[in-house]
C-alpha cells in the first residue's frame, strides 16, 4: 500500500491557485522530498495532506484513508513538524510531550516510557523539566520531532525542517530522521528548498513551482532525464531557472552565479 496518494490535488484561495492539479504517490518507508522555492505551494500541500486545509478539488489518501471523511484515522497515522515552532513556550519539554500523548490517547505507561526514550533520542533528556522558552531554535526543532513521533505515526511530515538551523544541527537532525526511517520504517515526507538535503537524504523528489508539479523521481533519475550531473543542474533544466536566488544560501548563490557566467 502507498503511504500517500494524491490525484489532481488542487487548492484555490479566492482567485489564486496555490496548488494546481498535482498528482503523486509516496511509497511506504520512503524519504520523499518536495522541492521548490518559497511560495511554490509546498506548505499548502502539506496542510491539505494533514487535514488542516480542505482541497478545492482532487482526491487524497493517507494510509488508505481520505483526510476529509476519515480525519481522525488520518490524524492518528501521522506526526508533523511544522515550519514555525508549535510548542507551548510556557510549558516544559516534558509537559509538551505529555500534552501531545494525552491528545493522541497514548496509554499512561507507554507514554512515560516513550517520552523518556524519545527525549533521550533527541538528546534533551537532561533538559526535560526546563521551560521551552529557554530553548534554542535547534533544541525546539528536536523537541518537535520527538513530539511528532510520540504516538508511533506511520508517516512523519516535516515542513522546511532545517530552515534557520545551523549546519551542525542540520546534520544532526537528518541523522535522527534517517535512523528513524531505517529502524522504524517510518515514511518521511519533507519540503525544502535546499538541493543538497534532497541529494543527501531523499529516495525520491518532486519538483514543484508556482503550484505545478514539474518532475518526480529519484535524484539520479532526474539527472538522467535532463542529462545533467547534479540536482541543481537538473532543476535548472526542468524549471528554466535556478531556485530563486534570494532564497538560497550565499555559497550556492555564488555557485549559481559562476555557472550562469560560464554560459
Amino acid at each position, binding site marked *: 500500500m502507498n503511504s500517500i496518494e494524491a490525484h489532481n490535488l488542487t487548492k484555490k484561495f479566492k482567485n489564486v491557485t496555490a496548488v494546481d492539479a498535482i498528482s503523486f504517490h509516496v511509497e511506504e518507508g520512503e524519504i520523499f522530498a518536495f522541492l521548490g522555492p518559497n511560495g511554490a505551494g509546498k506548505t499548502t500541500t502539506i496542510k491539505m495532506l494533514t487535514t488542516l486545509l480542505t482541497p478545492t478539488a482532487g482526491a487524497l489518501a493517507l494510509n488508505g484513508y481520505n483526510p476529509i471523511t476519515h480525519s481522525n484515522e488520518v490524524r492518528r497515522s501521522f506526526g508533523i513538524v511544522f515550519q514555525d*515552532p*508549535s510548542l507551548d513556550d510556557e*510549558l516544559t519539554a516534558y509537559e509538551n510531550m*505529555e500534552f501531545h500523548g*494525552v491528545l493522541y490517547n497514548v496509554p499512561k505507561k507507554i507514554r512515560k516510557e516513550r517520552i523518556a526514550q524519545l527525549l533521550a533520542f533527541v538528546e534533551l533528556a537532561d533538559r526535560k523539566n526546563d521551560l521551552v522558552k529557554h530553548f534554542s531554535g535547534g533544541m525546539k526543532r528536536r523537541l518537535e520531532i520527538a513530539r511528532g513521533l510520540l504516538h508511533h505515526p506511520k508517516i512523519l511530515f516535516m515542513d522546511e525542517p532545517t530552515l534557520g538551523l545551523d549546519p551542525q544541527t542540520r546534520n544532526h537532525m537528518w541523522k535522527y530522521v534517517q535512523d528513524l526511517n531505517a529502524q522504524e520504517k517510518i515514511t518521511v515526507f519533507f519540503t525544502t528548498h535546499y538541493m543538497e538535503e534532497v541529494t543527501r537524504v531523499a529516495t525520491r523528489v518532486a519538483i514543484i513551482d508556482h503550484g505545478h508539479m514539474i518532475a518526480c523521481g529519484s535524484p539520479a533519475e532526474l539527472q538522467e532525464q535532463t542529462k545533467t550531473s547534479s540536482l541543481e543542474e537538473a532543476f535548472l533544466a526542468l524549471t528554466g531557472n535556478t531556485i530563486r536566488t534570494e532564497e538560497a544560501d550565499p555559497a550556492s548563490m555564488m555557485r549559481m552565479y559562476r555557472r550562469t557566467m560560464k554560459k
Partner: protein
Amino acid sequence: MKVIYILWLRQLKRYARSKSRMIGALGQPILFLFALGFGFGPVFQKAGQGNYIQFLAPGIIGMSIIFTSIFFGIEIIWDRQFGFLKETLVAPVSRLNIMIGRTLGGATVATCQGIIVFLISLLAGFRFYDIAQLPLVFLVMMLVSILFTALGTAIASMMSDMHGFQLIMNFLVMPLFFLSGALFPLWQSDRTIIAIAQLDPLTYGVDALRALLIDMSHFGLSVDLIVLSGIAVIFLFIGSYLFSKIQV
C-alpha cells in the same frame, strides 16, 4: 474527558506561571474598588443609598471576571500566532472537546481571579450577609466566567491577529462593564440605559452576586440564573461552531 482535562490543566499552569499577568489583572479591580469606593462613598451615603463599598464590591468582582475570561477566550489568537493552535488542530480529537477544555480552563482562572478580588474587598471593608451563600456565589462566578470565556473564544475564532484587540476592549468589554450596573444602581437611571442594561449578560451576573452577597436584587436570583445559563449555552454553541471553522 482526558483531553478536556489536559487542556484545562494547561491553562491553569500557564496562569500560575505568569505572575506578572496575575498581578497585572488584579491592578485594575483594586484601583476601581479603592478609588471609586472611597471616592464616591460619601456622596452615595448622602444620597441615602447606604454604604458604597457594599454596593460596589460585587460589581468589581464581576468586572475582574469579565476582563479575565474574555481575555482568556481571546488567547486563542496568541496560540495561533505562536503556532501552538496547529498542534491541537491536527490531533485526533474533536474540536468541541478542545473548545470545552479551553473554556473551562479560562473560566476556572477567571473564577479564581474573582475570588481573589472578593477577598481583597473584604480588606476594603466589604461584609457579606450569609456565609452559607458562598458556595452559590462561587457557582455564579463560574457561570459568568464560562459565558464570557465562550464569548471571547467566539470572537477570537474570527480574528487572525491581535490588531482588533483594542477594538474589542473599547467597544465590547468596556460597554458591557459600564452598562451592567456594576458601578451605579441601575433601576434609578434613565429608561434607555435600563433597556440597554437588560441586554447585557453581565447585568444579570452582577445582580446575582448582589442577591447572594448583600441580599439585594433587581431581577431576583432565579431570573438571573436562568438568563445566565441560557446565554452561556448559546455562547458555547456559537463559540464551538466558530472554533470548528478555524483554519490555520
